């Protein structure tokens, strides 16, 4: 755990308590079974808004608390532990795009409402199944046209921050916007969003696009950290109770060493994820390297831990009744989101002249 201020420690403890009491994995299971159109629990999102978490990365003058990305990452991590289906991780980078953007009217109109949890905002970037391909979306005469695949919270978002060829635009409202849900393994909201001459406001150039995508990737890594640590803790508890050959599984050295190896990787994962979040807050120029390091290590480690969670639980881990499958499915989606481990290793290689 990074060295935290008193304020950050309180925020983290509060987020953990809320997630454990109000948003345990059973809540996610209920939501998965009920499958509401918006893909999240509206009541829980309302509580998150009241607690002010929607405004953690929004400037104080715009209705937020400006606590920064390490703080938001810690909250996202706590929610990730319990697989809370919340639009929080999507609204943060979208809000940053507006706050860093060049349109003052957009700031005045949206940031306060996002901070209060009244609206969901999200990034709409990728146009293919894999992050990083060329972007064909164009803006002519203030109207944006293009199709974005797999937009998180795309079922419910009122505000889209959209990547076009020449930079980043804001599209709000329904004029020229068509959504089609894409049901995925993690049972969260993903939608194809088609923009046909939708009225758009310019926020900034491709530099801004790259920056907020890095913010989103760092938050995905923070969610993966919480998810992986909880998957690991659940597995460790299980090994202490499950008896085979007259012994608790946790007494077998072969399993002990696999767990020790995973703990080792988790400690490294925590360091790189916190490192990326701190790099955002410090405005560091090597943010891209820090994010590629974090997302790549997070992808490998979350994969390792969630696959081992299934294997070490044996048959019960394969059942829908057990939570293990939820962890593996969400980890796989987060790994693919904003560039998988291989994508970020390649980017890291280029940035370092390999």
């Amino acid at each position, binding site marked *: 755990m*990074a060295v935290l201020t008193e304020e950050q420690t309180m925020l983290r403890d509060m987020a953990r308590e809320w997630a454990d009491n109000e948003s345990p994995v059973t809540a996610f299971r209920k939501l998965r079974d009920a499958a509401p159109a918006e893909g999240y629990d509206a009541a829980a999102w309302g509580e998150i808004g009241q607690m002010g978490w929607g405004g953690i990365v929004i400037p104080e003058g715009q209705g937020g608390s400006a606590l920064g990305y390490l703080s938001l990452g810690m909250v996202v991590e706590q929610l990730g532990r319990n697989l809370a289906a919340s639009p929080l991780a999507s609204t943060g980078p979208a809000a940053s795009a507006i706050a860093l953007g060049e349109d003052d009217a957009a700031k005045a109109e949206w940031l306060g409402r996002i901070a209060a949890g009244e609206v969901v905002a999200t990034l709409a970037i990728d146009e293919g199944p894999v992050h990083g391909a060329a972007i064909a979306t164009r803006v002519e005469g203030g109207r944006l046209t293009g199709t974005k695949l797999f937009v998180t919270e795309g079922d419910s978002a009122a505000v889209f921050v959209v990547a076009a060829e020449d930079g980043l635009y804001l599209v709000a409202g329904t004029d020229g916007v068509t959504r089609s849900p894409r049901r995925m393994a993690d049972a969260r909201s993903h939608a194809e969003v088609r923009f046909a001459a939708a009225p758009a406001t310019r926020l900034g150039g491709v530099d801004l696009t790259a920056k907020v995508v890095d913010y989103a990737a760092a938050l995905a890594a923070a969610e993966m950290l919480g998810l992986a640590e909880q998957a690991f803790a659940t597995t460790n508890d299980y090994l202490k109770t499950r008896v085979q050959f007259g012994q608790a599984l946790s*007494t077998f050295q072969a399993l*002990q060493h696999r767990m*020790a190896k995973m703990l080792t990787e988790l400690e490294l994962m925590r*360091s790189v994820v*916190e*490192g990326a979040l701190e790099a955002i807050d410090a405005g560091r120029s090597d943010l891209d390297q820090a994010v590629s390091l974090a997302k790549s290590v997070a992808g490998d480690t979350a994969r390792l831990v969630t696959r081992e969670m299934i294997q070490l639980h044996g048959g019960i881990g394969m059942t829908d009744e057990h939570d293990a499958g939820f962890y593996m499915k969400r980890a796989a989606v987060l790994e693919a989101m904003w560039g998988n481990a291989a994508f970020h*290793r390649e980017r890291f290689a280029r940035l370092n002249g390999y």
Partner: protein
Amino acid sequence: MASAAESDPLAAFREDVRNWLAAHFPKSLAYKDVGLSALEGPQDPSADEAAWTRAMGEKGWGVPTWPSAYGGGGLSRAEARVLQDEMARIGASNPIGGMGVMMFGPTLLEYGTEEQKQEHIPRIARNEVRWCQGYSEPGAGSDLAALQMFAEDKGDHYLVNGQKTWTSGGQWADKCFALVRTDKTKKHEGISFLLIDMDSPGVEVKPIRLISGSSPFCETFFTDVKVPKGNLVGREGEGWTIGKRLLQHERSSLSGGGGSAGRLLAGKPLSQVAKDYRGTDADGRLSDADLRMRLVRHEMDTRAFMLTLRRAALEAKSNQGPSAATSIMKNVGARITQDRAELGIEIMGMNGLGWEGEGFTDAELAQTRTWLWGKAVSIYGGSSEIQNNIVAKRILGMLDHQ
């Protein structure tokens, strides 16, 4: 300058350090490693090296945070960091080192009697005595508590019989801190911590030649060796507790390995060495795509480790208690050191496997030996498997087989 001094509460101390170093550090030694590691064997120090060692020894700055009452520097941690910074700035390395500094000194300061501290600590601080570690035995490596070397109570002295092995630098050591059995009926509680003069009659040392061609380790035989009772540290039977404490010092000094192993190979970044040996494609990338990605993984692993070292240090400083991160350090450090050496010989091809003689550069020959010697780092100081046992049992609360 005035404002800089105001913002740095240690400015006056920094000034003193600079002046002292200017007066005492011989410029001829800049950027030379003059540390007399216990692994390197006796050296014939130049006049400058001897003078530098003497100066640092008298000042106590070789062991800057040890109490000045026993010849240490008596500095605070913050002051010690200033000293380290200032030495690094001019390329000065610490000439005082070895196992006495890394492991035995801190342990004796905690458990020794006043008399023992007065006798041993100042001599370690002045680099006047070489210590070696008498822990492992042929039948007691990872299972250290199975050790058999026996110290029989003869009234005013112990009579010691048995064998130790993997005694680092035993052939050059003056003294040995050893774990010996004083009670054969108990396992852990039958062990005591004893200091033995290596020139005592009955001590015999045989160097062990390693796969790297060097002999940093020895087998050490003890036959009817008389050791005065005053050389017992702590109480009889308390040796396991004291010995384990010493191992913590050892582990923390070893875990720096991966980081301080340096990012350079043959004086260059690893990626550059790879391009020099293997060439680049039309886009300027390393032409071997598989090697390129493995080098990136290694670089990422190294950075993750450095960030973890930094995080653990910050957490320790902020009094959050010892970080769980420290328990994984030795294994990650070992893995990085070994991966780096494996990548190094792979990059160099046949030139990375030269043993001696013509046709190889010095850097290539060094790489061969570094690779071979590096295989020890996951074995000594508690093997990686033992570290994993510690993590599983102490951190994760996993259980012993019933």
